[in-house]
Structure formats: structure tokens, C-alpha cells
């Protein structure tokens, strides 16, 4: 076999391995979600059914999904514009002590989430903030580094000449923002919002510590079932359902990204 053929075969094998690496862990979850009984060492469930789904629904899964979605959307709604503003300020070079400011902004990424949550927990308790508000506030702190980083990259490639052009065409600052800046930065903004949503949607540590058990999101519900024994079916059903909303959002974001660059 010639060298190019070997390289092509190796490439194919690596691609297959990569796909398996991502897909294989999902297979047992998929099977467990619809298994009423699956004893070890059987390769497949002995009895198929929806016991896991029913248990999840009975345990308050719909409300947990609403709580998680609200957390995700609230975090995205606050962290995305905040990250965009921070990125714009850093990109403009008008921020005093830019390195230090960046270090502070990105600190939640470097520090363990547990440490950040515990540190802010004290602050939140002293401030007597309601649990949901406190959870959102702390998750926003965790999400801002991601949104800032993504928007910083976007602003690096952004041409402010478009804004100058718009202003000479009579556009006010608000019109420039709505008709020029936001549409041009839409792919980056939607990407940042998606990441911020994921921070809120999938968080466990902050919701548990700051929420103090009063904010029951999907990860908290999954965590409580996973801590017990014999709950594999409900854990799998909830985990599988938890993938759906981010997946839908991902498709929406990808479509938004494709639309930009073509006419509207």
C-alpha cells in the first residue's frame, strides 16, 4: 500500500474513532432511558418501557426544565450584552490597566467554580438576595468570561468603518447599534448567548450552593436521582431530555450564522 493510501486510511480510522468517542457514551443513556429493567451483565435491557420518563415527570421534571430554561435565558440575556460591552471596551484600548482588567474578568474561568461559588455565597447571604436572583447573579459572573472572550475575538475582526459610514449617512448612534453593529455581530452574539445559556442551563455547583435547595433545576434533579441507587432509567431519561433544548438552540445559532453574510 502506498504512503498516500495509508495516510487516507489512517485519516478515516481517526475520524471514525472520533465519532465513536462522542457517540458511544450516549448509547447506554439512550438505552437506559427506555429500559424498565436492565440487569448486569446483559448487553441489552430485558424489559423496555417508560418507567424512567414517568418517574421523572412525577418528580417535577417539567418545573425543573422551566427553572433551567429561565436560568439559561436570564444568564444569556445579562451576560451577552455585558460581555459585548466589556469586549468593546477592551478592544478600543480605552480601558485603564487593561491587563489587570482582563485578568479580573477572566478570573472565574481560572478559579475552580466551587471556590467562586463559595466566595460569592458569603456575599449573597450578607446582601440577603433572593435565591433565584442570587443564582442568576453568580452564574452571570461565571458566564461573562466566555461571552467576553468570544466577543473580543469578534470585535478583533470587526471593522468600525461600517459605523463611520452609517453615521455619515445620517444614522444616529441608536440606529448604528440596531441596523449595523448588532446585525454584523449577530453570529458572535448568538454564539456568546448560546454559551451563556449553557452556563445557566447545565450548572450544578452554583445552583446547589447558592440556591440552597430552593432552586431545583434539571442538573439538581438529575443529581438527586443519581445520588441514589436504582434510578438509572430516570437519570438517563432526564439527561436525554436535557440535551434537547441546547441542541435546538445550537441549530438556531448555526442558522443565524449562515444567514449573516447573505442578504436579508
Amino acid at each position, binding site marked *: 500500500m502506498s504512503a498516500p493510501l495509508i495516510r487516507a486510511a489512517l485519516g478515516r480510522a481517526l475520524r471514525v474513532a472520533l465519532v465513536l468517542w462522542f457517540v458511544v457514551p450516549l448509547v447506554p443513556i439512550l438505552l437506559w432511558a427506555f429500559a424498565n429493567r436492565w440487569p448486569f451483565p446483559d448487553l441489552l435491557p430485558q424489559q423496555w418501557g417508560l418507567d424512567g420518563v414517568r418517574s421523572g415527570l412525577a418528580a417535577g421534571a417539567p418545573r425543573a426544565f422551566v427553572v433551567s430554561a429561565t436560568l439559561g435565558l436570564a444568564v444569556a440575556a445579562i451576560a451577552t450584552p455585558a460581555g459585548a460591552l466589556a469586549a468593546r471596551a477592551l478592544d478600543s484600548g480605552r480601558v485603564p490597566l487593561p491587563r489587570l482588567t482582563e485578568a479580573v474578568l477572566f478570573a472565574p474561568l481560572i478559579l475552580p467554580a466551587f471556590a467562586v461559588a463559595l466566595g460569592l455565597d458569603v456575599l449573597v447571604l450578607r446582601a440577603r438576595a433572593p435565591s433565584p436572583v442570587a443564582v442568576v447573579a453568580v452564574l452571570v459572573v461565571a458566564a461573562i468570561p466566555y461571552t467576553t472572550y468570544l466577543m473580543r475575538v469578534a470585535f478583533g475582526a470587526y471593522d468600525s468603518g461600517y459605523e*463611520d459610514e452609517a453615521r*455619515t*449617512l445620517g444614522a444616529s448612534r441608536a440606529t448604528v447599534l440596531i441596523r449595523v453593529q448588532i446585525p*454584523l455581530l449577530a453570529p458572535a452574539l448568538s454564539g456568546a448567548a448560546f454559551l451563556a445559556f449553557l452556563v445557566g442551563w447545565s450548572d450544578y455547583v452554583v445552583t446547589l450552593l447558592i440556591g440552597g435547595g430552593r432552586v431545583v433545576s434539571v442538573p439538581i434533579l438529575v443529581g438527586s436521582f443519581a445520588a441514589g441507587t436504582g434510578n438509572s432509567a430516570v437519570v438517563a431519561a432526564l439527561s436525554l431530555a436535557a440535551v434537547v433544548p441546547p441542541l435546538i438552540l445550537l441549530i438556531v445559532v448555526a442558522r443565524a450564522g449562515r444567514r449573516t*453574510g447573505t442578504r*436579508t
Partner: protein
Amino acid sequence: MTTRLQVRNLTRQHPGQQAPALDGLHLEVDAGGCLAVLGPSGSGKSTALRLIAGLDTPTGGTVLLDGADMTDVPAEKRGIAMVFQRPLLFPHLSVIDNVAFAGRAAGLSRSASRAASRRYLDLVQLGGYADRAVADISGGQAQRVALARSLAAEPKVLLLDEPFSALDSALRSDMYALLRTIRDELNPTIVLVTHDQSEAAVVADAIAVLIGGVLEHHSDVRTAYLRPSTVAVHRLMGGLNEIPGTIVAGVHHSELGSVVLPADDDPRDGPATLVIRQEMLRLVPVTAATLTGVVTALQPAGIRQRACVRVGTTSVFVELAPHVTVAPGAQVGLELPTEALHAVRAGP
């Protein structure tokens, strides 16, 4: 749409820089006139345009439109549109929606702004491209759309910041013709920034030359070629002949001999450089009365040739008419028409 533009003592000092990017610029453009601001890279041309447009704040000076001070008026309220070197078409809008942008910014509905903008798209001969995405048009078409977009804003003054420099020569010629059409039909007041003296000569009625942030020359096009204020302006206008010498009683004395300067030239005595356009010189048969030299080199210049004629230790360049041929080493006579002569003093 036509307005008189005046710029008085306009200065811009960038933070952290010692020399001002623009130092006390004075300019006037009559209503419906076209001024070309010419200068090398970094001479402050674009800075001047951005200050006039209101995109940057001047350190000093004023911008007046029909006598009204616009210096503190924000860019979006000045009624001054600008076309940049790059078309900067909004990629999320179609061609027609780019042209309709000013209408939308002014609060018109989508259909009204589109209807109003069709006239300008037709004017730049792209009426059939209205629904195209901007990614689907060529560079030359994009610059036409950019021009139509600025015209659709119905500005009092149109600023053009090297808008044709990225186009090839054929497209540039098309754009010059288009600009003439626009001037005929809409008669806007135009300030064009360029580093190309031939472009300035083709498009504008007047030329201002900026060098090192300072206005060194401001006149009509012919004067800029024949009577440059400084040697640097002469060079920038493409002039090749600079002969050092001295003026005594209206006569310039140099290695070329004594030449009588035109009556309207600065008559003061003292050291001065004689500048002569190479296009204005002619080779003539050698006689006792003519200035005589030897052709040392011939350079191709398109359909013409440029001869380098040595007179003593001085080289004089002569652009030959297309039908004229001469061989290197030939002895030739030089005719210096009086209207081609101009002396530039070193100091003020």
C-alpha cells in the same frame, strides 16, 4: 444639494504625537465645485476628510457649510456623506437596501426608502442589481453602489476618500465618467482625496496639496501643474525639472542661461529653483540662438518617449510628442516657452 464648504485653521493633534497630523488647514470649495486634496501617504488628507465629516474631533479650527459652523455638530447631522477607499457595503443588506440605508435612518418605511433609492442606483447604472447580495457583485460595482448609497443621503457635501484607488485603470476611467455624470445631474459639492495627480486633474476643478499636515498649495488644476507653490508640490504634480539658480530683476540665471520669467511670476530677487513641466518643453533644431544640449537617455512613457537632455551639468527632461524620434547622443536645441517657466523660492 449644493453648498459652499469652508475650512478654517483646522488642526488635529493625535494624542501622544508631537507633530500635528493636520496643521491649520484653510480650504474653500464653492457650491457645486470639486476640490481634489492631493498628498503623499501620511500627509493628513484622510484626517482632514474625517474632521470635515465630523468623524473625528479637531484640536482647533472650524468647518462651515454655507457660513454655518458645523464643528460641534455630530457627523450624522452634518449632511456630509463620505465614500471610503473600501466600499464598506453592509453585508447583511441587499444592494437596494444598502442604497436605501439613509432613507431608513431618516425614518422612512422600507418601501419608501427603496423607491427613493432606485433613482441613485439607476444613476450608477446598476438598476438591475437591486436585489443582489453585496457578496455577489464585483469590486467596481460595489464602489458604484457605495457612491449611490452616499448620494441617496442627498448630502450637502460629498467626501470621497481615495474611492477609486483599489480599482484597475479601466474601472477607474469608468468611475471618472460616472463622477462627471453625477456632477452634471446632481451638482454636489465634492472633496476628493487622492494621491494620484492625474486623477485629481481629471476629476476636480481645483487642487489642494497637503504635505506633512500643512497645506502647501491651493489653486485651479492648471496652476497646480504650471505654478506650484513649492518644489515638493511640483514633484507631487509629476514635475521632473528643477533647476537651481538666482532671480535678478525678473530673470532667472542658471546653467540653462538667463531666462525671463513670466510677468505674473514672483519678481523678488534671490535664490530660486526654476521648475518647468516636461510636457511643455520642445526639442528644436540647433541654431546659434537656441539652448543646446545632448540627449543622454530615452525613457519610454507609453506612446511617447521621455528624453533626458544634458545641458552643462544639468539634466532636463523633455516629453516628446508621439511622432518625434531622437537618438541618444544627438545634439538638440531646447525651446523653453515662457508660459512653462516658474521660479520657486526656498523660503517664504
